[in-house]
């Protein structure tokens, strides 16, 4: 310790002129307002601003100058022997020199501020300049330390005249490329989690700087301890340490990323499940090994396909359930994407990947289609041969085999495309809606004939009123438009948008469905009880099924025999019950105490899009009886047979 302090004192003593220069510079902030003849509030602001700029500039200049000369000057002039021929350990010499230099840098920052601090009783305007607080100044100080270390490393590399210095550039380029590749591999996985972190880009810079500081400190110590008086050996040790440490860090990062990206399904904490079409495939999302995971999972076979989490922007499943496609961000992204992605999500050109859902083990293939960043939704044709890319007022159709754009259709006006689907491989139906909710609401229906390359409007509906919900039939022929303010449900032809009938709601609307036989089921409730009203396709009342003194919380997909699962919750307690509404016999029966249908908002395709009796209609969340109301498992339950099987047991 005595040796360390002796070296530090010597370092400071040799460069004491720095302290004198800083003291002289500290007068400048006081002189600036006088020279510029400022008065009033402008005086302390000008003084503080000048002092901060001066302190920053002085500190940065000192960091570079000290970094360059700290050991290098003595090494190249062969004066390191002065220290190494004395009882000073390499560690004490290294730490003493850095301690002395660090003191000088801190003094170089603080001394120019002292008169300003005294006159202003602190730095009351600091927040205006630094955008933060003292922590911003501390961070800046830490970054100056890194600047000093980088200067030191560069000076050793250059002035040692070692041939190894030529390889520094190659090693640096390799490390930067490696870090970038790792970043592309890992950051998208973390992106969604990073969005919950305050100032993620700033943290990324701080952590990267921290790693660099540790590596440079380690390299500096090893170089001095191992090379001692020989400049080339000092440089060789520094070279070995820096690049092996950074290379090793990146290699470890790749190993870690491989570990993260191969998280087994059982280790994923699943946070959401969406049905991926009618055939029993689901999209799973959750957190596995600290990273976001996105998985396409087959509930029947257990096969799964891991999607590049964070890079997938949108997904689609063909109406026939035979294929799934997703658009993922291209790997060729520019550096500014780092900062944009954590705040706004990934942007940029997107690649389209296609996977057959009929062939369980077939991996996803990358198609030749490339989508622009403005695409916000996609639709897949039956069989997965074509893809419709939806932008604000444009719909483009790609042939997925060739990647060619086979058609582009423009929509005009203030509305935007809200939904599009392939009716057949050559026919696309499009809904266009107001972008802003107003006193009236307009819906347009269009039909695109891909063979004829024609776009035709087939109907338009304008309604007055406020909040509303739109529910489609599985065949998409009809729509239910529930006006929650007026308390009516309109049955609308989805092509012409002609209103077939209007039904007055008998209570608060919860949910509804167009039955496979064309009839209508509406779930309603009041403060005391809930019930299901049944109507014919023409809107004529067919009957009411009372659900008891419980809230109806969720309506499931119709089973093949006209059964509708409904989740009920007690009025005063969290008790959950799944009942089956028989729309044919207009009766009710208890199905289970521990199941709830998959929520509509989590479904890729609305439950009313799913055909009655499809595999997806048999998927439910399982609850722990008498336990938490949160889902504990994914369960396949057949309302027709009562057969129940746990598909995923670790939600």
């Amino acid at each position: 310790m005595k040796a360390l302090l002796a070296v530090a004192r010597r370092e400071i003593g040799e460069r004491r002129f720095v302290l004198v220069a800083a003291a002289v510079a500290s007068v400048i902030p006081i002189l600036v307002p006088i020279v510029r003849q400022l008065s009033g509030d402008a005086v302390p602001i000008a003084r503080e601003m000048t002092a901060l700029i001066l302190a920053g500039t002085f500190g940065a200049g000192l960091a570079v100058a000290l970094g360059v000369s700290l050991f290098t000057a003595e090494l190249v002039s062969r004066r390191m022997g002065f220290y190494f021929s004395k009882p000073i350990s390499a560690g004490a010499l290294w730490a003493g020199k850095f301690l002395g230099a660090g003191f000088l840098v801190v003094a170089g920052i603080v001394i120019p501020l002292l008169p300003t601090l005294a006159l202003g009783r602190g730095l009351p305007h600091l927040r205006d300049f630094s955008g933060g607080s003292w922590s911003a100044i501390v961070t800046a100080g830490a970054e100056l330390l890194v600047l000093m270390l980088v200067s030191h490393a560069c000076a050793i590399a250059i002035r040692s005249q070692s041939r190894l210095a030529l390889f520094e550039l190659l090693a640096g380029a390799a490390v930067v490329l490696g870090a970038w590749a790792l970043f592309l591999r890992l950051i998208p996985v973390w992106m969604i989690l990073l969005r919950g972190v305050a100032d993620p880009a700033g943290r990324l810079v701080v952590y990267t700087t921290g790693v660099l500081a540790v590596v440079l400190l380690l390299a500096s110590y090893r170089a001095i301890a191992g090379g001692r008086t020989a400049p080339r050996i000092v440089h060789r040790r520094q070279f070995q340490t820096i690049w092996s440490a950074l290379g090793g860090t990146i290699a470890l990062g790749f190993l870690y990323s491989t570990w993260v990206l191969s998280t087994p399904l059982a280790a994923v904490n699943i946070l959401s499940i969406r049905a991926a079409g009618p055939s029993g495939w689901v999209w799973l999302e959750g957190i596995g090994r600290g990273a976001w995971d996105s998985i396409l999972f087959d509930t029947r076979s257990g096969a799964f396909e891991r999607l590049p989490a964070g890079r997938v922007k949108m997904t689609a499943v063909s109406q026939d359930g035979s294929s799934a496609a997703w658009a993922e961000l291209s790997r060729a992204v520019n550096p500014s994407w780092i900062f944009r992605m954590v705040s706004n999500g990934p942007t940029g050109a997107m690649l389209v990947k296609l996977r057959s859902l009929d062939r369980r083990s077939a991996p996803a293939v990358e198609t030749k289609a490339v989508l622009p960043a403005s695409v916000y939704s996609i639709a897949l044709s039956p069989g997965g041969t074509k893809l419709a890319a939806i932008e604000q007022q444009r719909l483009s159709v790609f042939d997925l085999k060739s990647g060619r754009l086979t058609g582009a259709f423009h929509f005009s006006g203030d509305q935007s495309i809200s939904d599009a689907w392939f009716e057949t491989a050559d026919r696309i139906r499009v809904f266009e809606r107001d972008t802003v909710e107003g006193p009236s609401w307009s819906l347009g229906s269009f039909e695109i004939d891909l063979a004829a390359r024609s776009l035709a409007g087939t109907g338009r509906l304008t309604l007055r009123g406020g909040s509303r919900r739109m529910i489609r039939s599985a065949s998409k022929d009809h729509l239910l438009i529930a006006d929650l303010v007026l308390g009516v449900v309109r049955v609308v032809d989805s092509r012409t948008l002609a209103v077939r009938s209007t039904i007055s709601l008998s209570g608060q609307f919860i949910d509804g469905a167009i039955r496979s036989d064309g009839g209508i089921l509406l779930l309603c409730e009041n403060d005391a009880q809930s019930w299901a009203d049944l109507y014919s396709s023409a809107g004529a009342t067919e009957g009411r099924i009372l659900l008891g003194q419980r809230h109806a919380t969720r309506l499931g997909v119709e089973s093949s025999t006209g059964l509708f699962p409904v989740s009920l919750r007690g009025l005063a307690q969290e008790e959950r019950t799944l009942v089956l509404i028989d729309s044919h016999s207009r009766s009710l029966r208890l199905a289970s105490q521990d199941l709830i249908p998959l929520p509509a908002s989590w479904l890729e395709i609305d439950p009313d899009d799913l055909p009655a009796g499809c595999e997806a209609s048999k998927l439910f969340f399982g609850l722990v009886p008498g336990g938490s109301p949160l889902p504990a498992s994914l369960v396949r339950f057949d309302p027709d047979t009562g057969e129940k099987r746990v598909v995923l047991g670790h939600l």
Partner: protein
Amino acid sequence: MTGETAVSQATGRSASDAAPAEVRGLTVRYGRAVACESVSFAVPAGGVYVLLGRNGAGKSSLVRCLLGEQKPQDGEARLFGESSWKHRARLLARVGVVPEEPDAPPAMTALQISNFCRRLYPAWDAESVTRRLARFGVPVKTPFGRLSKGQKGQVLLAMALAPSPDLLVLDDPTLGLDVVARRAFWEELVEDLADRGTTIFVTTHDLAAVEGIATRVGILKGGRLALDEDVEPLKSRFRRIRYANRMTETRTEYGNELDAFDAVKVQVRGWGIDAVVSDWTDEKFARFRQIDGVEGAEADALTLEEIFVAVAGEEPAKAEGEKR
């Protein structure tokens, strides 16, 4: 036996176990160039070991290894029985060093250097520094960089002696000094030796100066240790023999009369033969003089410098820096 091979027997292991300084199988290379190879010797306690060698023979590399400033490619350097590379800082508390090139920071005065060193050594005699420097006439408040080369050497010697070291390592300390400065340096050293009996390891080209104080000598040649021996026996077995040989036809050539000796250097002069032998004894010389044709044979003792020239092969370069 020739000059290419070690003339004396290496110091026995048991005698060198606790030697103040020792190297064992030391090899130092710079890329493909070999500075020294498989060098082994020990500096006996209380003695003055003089390591000689031509420029580039590997002396400075060896000294740096001995002081733990440089790691050898092979072998080991030890101080007081411990590895100087591994335990440098602790061991150097007992060692005073005068380097080949004055390496103190140019901005520091002698007084500041003394104050800096005072914190590093357990027993620092600051008074001895000022006393010595006063005797040398070196200003103590002048920055080191502004002192003459001789004054720098005197400052460093004063610093090296101040902690009362058990071992003094001098790496060509009088290199570049004028005669007066050299004499002052060695006189100070001799005085200290007389006072304390410090062990000294010195590399130098100033052979005349160390002749009177050296107790053991080593000669490096081409990176290898060609000789390692106590000075007295060394000087007693080396002799210059001058004679004329009437048995040869031309009288300036020589036959096989020198076969009885290990002649390390033989020169034919106008007046006869001039040979240096490394195994001279009175008996051998008496027999030599009886050989037919050998006339006017005389044997003279050699100085250390003459022995060095005979063993190392050529005149030693004087006052030239040795390239590291």
